[in-house]
């Protein structure tokens, strides 16, 4: 490996050149992430041939260099491969400087560009010319009479995957700013550098049933309960896909549509059934018994509740209280509930004091309202006392019923909406925290999740003063949990 120096932005830069054929296989990091994402490795012959076949001009710049001569610097962060040539770019130079370059170092002008840019070629070919280009650029810049002087680089950049394709994550996990605000997500990529969850941590999804045969959920299932009927499983009726979608947000093990804590275990609990007329029917006693079963028998550590409405009931509140105080051997279960979608006061049970009440944010880091920028004017997140924090709740990719039933004809849905989608993000984050800090109490986890959430900003850039106007940051919560152990 040879190291060359050149100047850029007035500072010395080092170029670590290796023969392209031995350069490290390209392992790209997705933009903004620290986690390697394997991409197809480039080999030297491919690069050389592609360069020459695509452009006669580039062929000229690399004249005299075989694929065995080509030098390159691989950038593990961007996945880019940069090749130096035996030409140098000079910008903003007086004629006397170009004459100096020509007379003293033998460089010839190849091309004049716009706004005073000139490209000059070293007299030597091959790698000697590359070394001459670095040297000439450095010497010329140090004379102090040019705006820029450095080798002309050829860059081979990986194609950036278009957002929304199967190989990219949903905005909720990694918001790349396409159709939203860059970074307005739960920071899943960063969180996954610490953990993707643990099978020891069981998350209960209390809903209208979960398709426990779904290929992306089935491996996670450790317990099922049907509190509605007498089935030995918790699978839903007909097209009822809500619980399956909620479970997927937490722990889908699909590579393209992963949950936030994909290595966690799933406890599926059916507590409700649709009546076909826009209502869910629940029996408060059965719901309370199901909650008790979760912490007592199924050993769930987190209870995710994407349901709510109606007046409060002590029998359910007491069951939640037992889960919070007696679950996990006295450390307590983390209780999470959706606040509701009517843009009105927070629903029961989310408004219970020690339940994490979760509202919806959109990809612009706004609280979801009927007028927020996402364009979904038919619903807004509930608000007020009982709202503890927000999590993504608009157009969330997740699991759908296996096969043609459910929201879509396939196994996944890409537009799951509502605070029903938000609450499972927080449940997933709690599962991540418990994977690294299993001895933390439920109250501590609750405090960490709320305390590390990112405050939303107003249009003027100030912190929003609205209660609960902060969006889940799973990475920050994980770091705080690790410090707290």
């Amino acid at each position, binding site marked *: 490996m040879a190291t060359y120096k050149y100047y850029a932005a007035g500072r010395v830069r080092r170029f670590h050149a290796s023969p392209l054929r031995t350069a490290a296989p390209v392992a790209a990091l997705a933009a903004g992430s620290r986690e390697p994402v394997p991409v197809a490795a480039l080999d030297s012959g491919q690069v050389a041939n592609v360069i020459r076949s695509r452009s006669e001009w580039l062929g000229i710049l690399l004249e005299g260099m075989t694929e065995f001569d080509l030098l390159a610097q691989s950038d593990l962060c961007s996945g880019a491969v940069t090749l130096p040539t035996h030409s140098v770019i000079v910008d903003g130079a007086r004629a006397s400087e170009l004459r100096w370059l020509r007379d003293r170092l033998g460089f010839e002008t190849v091309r004049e560009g716009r706004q005073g840019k000139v490209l000059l070629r070293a007299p030597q070919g091959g790698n000697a010319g590359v070394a001459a280009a670095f040297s000439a650029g450095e010497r010329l810049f140090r004379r102090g009479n040019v705006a820029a002087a450095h080798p002309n680089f050829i860059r081979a950049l990986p194609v950036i995957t278009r957002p929304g394709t199967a190989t990219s994550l949903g905005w909720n996990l990694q918001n790349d700013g396409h159709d939203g605000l860059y970074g307005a997500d739960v920071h899943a990529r960063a969180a996954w550098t610490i953990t993707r969850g643990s099978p020891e941590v069981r998350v209960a999804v209390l809903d209208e049933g979960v398709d426990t045969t779904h290929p992306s959920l089935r491996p996670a299932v450790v317990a099922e309960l049907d509190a509605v009927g007498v089935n030995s499983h918790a699978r839903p009726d007909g097209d009822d896909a809500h619980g399956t979608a909620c479970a997927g947000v937490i722990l889908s093990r699909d590579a393209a549509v992963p949950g936030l804590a994909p290595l966690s275990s799933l406890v599926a609990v059916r507590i409700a059934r649709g009546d076909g007329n826009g209502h869910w029917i*629940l029996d408060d006693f059965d719901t309370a018994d199901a909650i008790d079963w979760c912490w007592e028998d199924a050993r769930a550590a987190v209870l995710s509740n994407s349901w709510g409405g109606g007046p409060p009931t002590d029998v359910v*509140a007491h069951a939640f209280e037992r889960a919070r105080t007696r679950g996990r051997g006295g450390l307590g279960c983390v209780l999470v509930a959706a606040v509701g979608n009517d843009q009105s006061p927070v629903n029961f049970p989310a408004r219970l004091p020690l339940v994490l009440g979760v509202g919806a944010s959109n990809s612009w880091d706004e609280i979801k309202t009927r007028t927020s920028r996402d364009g979904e004017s038919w619903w807004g997140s509930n608000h007020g006392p009982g709202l503890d924090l927000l999590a993504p709740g608009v157009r969330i990719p997740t699991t759908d019923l296996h096969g043609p039933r459910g929201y879509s004809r396939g196994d996944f849905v890409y537009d799951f909406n509502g605070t029903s989608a938000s609450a499972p993000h927080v449940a997933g984050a709690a599962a991540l925290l418990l994977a690294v800090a299993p001895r933390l109490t439920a109250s501590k986890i609750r405090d960490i999740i709320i305390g590390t959430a990112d405050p939303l900003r107003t249009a003027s850039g100030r912190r929003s003063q609205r209660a609960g106007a902060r969006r889940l940051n799973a990475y920050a919560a994980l770091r705080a949990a690790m410090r707290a152990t």
Partner: protein
Amino acid sequence: MPYFYAAGKRVTLTVESSLWALDTEALAVALIGESIRKRILANSRRLRGKYVLAHVPSSALESLRAAHAVQPVYRSADAMLVALPEVRVEESRPETLRRLRAWIDLRRGSIEVSEAEAGRLTLRPASGDGVEALAIANELQEEFTPELAEARFIRSIEDPNLNLKARIRPHRPNGA
């Protein structure tokens, strides 16, 4: 006006005058005409277990009440509630529990009692009447302020999918 207690506070209930919760087992043996029975069931909506939600002709109401086949339907906070003839009671304080048991003992004939574990009791009024269950729970609340005394409710809440499900578009990555 009917009510119940939650977190020590009164929650008022509004009676839904046009709808009733029907016990389909009791309905089968109630002294009403077969055509009326069929008409009621044809327009009913399934609630939970043996219960359905239905409109009941006023001419059949007394017979159905006599057969303990109907329970009133209430509304509260955007939900529909049906009180079933069952009360759950929880109490861990020994003295309060003793007084509760004494109160129940005085009503052994009219209330069936089971105690799965100490301090967790289930009371069932012999009348099979949800309204009576509501009254028992309220009396216990007002007399003893136990940790829990609540009638068993079936609740019908808005489907979280409502207005969301219909707008979810089948969609594939890359627009496929």
